[in-house]
C-alpha cells in the first residue's frame, strides 16, 4: 500500500474491514527524511515528497481507519514522529516540519476521537539503528556520537521503539491520549 495514494489506502482499509470486520490498532510507521539539503537547494517536489510520505500518508490512513474505530467505539492509533519534530534538524527542514505536524495532527485527532474511545498517541524515536541509518554511518562513529550526546550512552534499537509502541497500544496506557512518547535515551527531554 502506498500511503500517499488516497484511493489505494481506502481500498486496502476496506478490504481489511471486510475480511476481519474490525481494526483495533493502527501504527503509522511509513516515513523517511530522504534528503539532506539546505533550503535553497531543496526543490518544491522534494518538499512535497517528504510531506506526502510522512504527514499526508498519516492523515490518509488515519482517516480511513478511524472511521472503522469510531464504528467499533474503540481503537488505538500510534503515529510516528521524531525527536527532530521537536528540536528541528539542519538540512532536514521538510522532515522536521512533517514530524512536528504529525504531533499537532495527532493532538487534534485525539480530541476529536476521545468521545469514541479511540486513543491517538505519538512515538518519537531518537537516533535508532535502522538499516537506513546504519547504512549511512559506521558503528564506531555512531557509538562515539552516542557516548558524547545521549545520556544512556547508546543509540536506540528498533526493539526499544517497538516496546514504546506496544505500551501505547496496550492497557497500560488506557488513560493517555494526545501524548508524545520520546524514546531517545535522554537525548531530548521535552
Amino acid at each position, binding site marked *: 500500500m502506498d500511503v500517499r495514494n488516497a484511493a489505494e489506502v481506502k481500498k486496502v482499509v476496506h478490504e481489511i474491514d471486510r475480511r476481519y470486520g474490525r481494526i483495533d490498532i493502527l501504527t503509522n510507521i511509513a516515513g523517511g527524511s530522504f534528503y539532506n539539503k539546505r533550503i535553497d537547494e531543496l526543490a518544491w517536489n522534494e518538499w512535497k515528497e517528504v510531506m506526502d510520505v510522512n504527514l499526508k500518508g498519516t492523515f490518509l490512513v488515519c482517516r480511513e481507519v478511524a472511521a472503522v474505530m469510531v464504528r467499533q467505539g474503540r481503537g488505538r492509533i500510534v503515529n510516528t514522529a521524531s525527536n527532530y519534530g521537536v528540536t528541528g534538524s539542519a538540512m532536514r527542514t521538510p522532515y522536521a516540519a512533517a514530524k512536528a505536524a504529525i504531533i499537532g495532527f495527532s*493532538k487534534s485527532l*485525539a*480530541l476529536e476521537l*476521545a*468521545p469514541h*474511545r479511540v*486513543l491517538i498517541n505519538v512515538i518519537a524515536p531518537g537516533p535508532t539503528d535502522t538499516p537506513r541509518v546504519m547504512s549511512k554511518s559506521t558503528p564506531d562513529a555512531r557509538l562515539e556520537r552516542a557516548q558524547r550526546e*545521549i*545520556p*544512556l*550512552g547508546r543509540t*536506540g*534499537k528498533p526493539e*526499544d521503539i517497538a*516496546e*514504546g509502541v*506496544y*505500551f501505547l497500544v496496550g*492497557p*497500560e*496506557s*488506557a*488513560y*493517555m*491520549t*494526545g*501524548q*508524545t*512518547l*520520546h*524514546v*531517545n*535515551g*535522554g537525548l531530548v*527531554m*521535552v
Partner: protein
Amino acid sequence: MIVRLKDKVAVVTGAAQGFGRSIALSFAREGARLVIADVKEDGAKGVEGEVLAVGAEVLAVRANVSDEASVLNLKDQTLNRFGRVDILVNNAGIFPHSITLQMAEEEWDRVLDTNLGGNFLCSRAFVPQIRSQKVGRIISIASGIAYRGAIAGSHYAASKAGIVGFVKSLARELGPDGITVNSICPGIADTALPRGRRSEEELYAMGEHIPLGRIANTEDIARVATFLATDAASYITGQALLVDGGSLML
C-alpha cells in the same frame, strides 16, 4: 503469568494511600519485593498487609521524606532487609490549599521540602546503591499542575514543576550508569489530595471536561509507573509522561 519485576526491590514513598498504594500493589503483582514508606505508619502497615496478600515480600517503614535522618533510616532499613534497591518511586507529596497572597512561609517550606526536597533526599540516599548495581529506575510523581498551575496551589505547582526539572537533570547525571529517571504527571485523579473543598460529585463532574470523559483513577497511574519500571522502558529517560486523559497535550 509472566511477571516483569521478579525479585526487584522497589521503594515507594507515600505508599499508604492513593497513587503510591496502587503502584506498590501493581509492582507486587509483577513479582517485586516492596518497601512501603510513609509518614503515616498505620497506613503503611495496612498496605503492607495488602502486599502480603498478593504474595510478595514487603517491609513497611515510617519515613518522612523531608527529614534527612528519616530518609537515611529508610535506606538503612531497606538495605538491611533486602540488600539492594532496583526501583525508587518518589511519590510522597502534600497539597494544602492557600491563596498565594495569604500563604504562610511555613506552608511554602513544608510543600517544597516534602514534594521537591523529598525527591532530592530520597534520590541522593538510594542512588549510590542503585549505581553500584549498574541498572535501576527512578520514577517521580509530578503533576499536570506543573504545567497548568493551580489556584491556591502555587507552592504545589512550583514543587511539581521543580520535580520535572530535577528529573531531567538527574537523568543526565545517571544515564551513564544505566539508571533511567522519569516522571509521571497525573491529571485530576480520584485520590485524597485533590479534593480540597470539592465534594465527591464536583470532583467526578470535572471528568466531563476531559477528552476521555473521566478523571483518573490510581490504577491509571500505577500501570504507567509499572511500564516505566520494566525492561520495556529501558531506553526512555528524562521524560515526563502526562497521564491525564488528554487534558493537556504538550
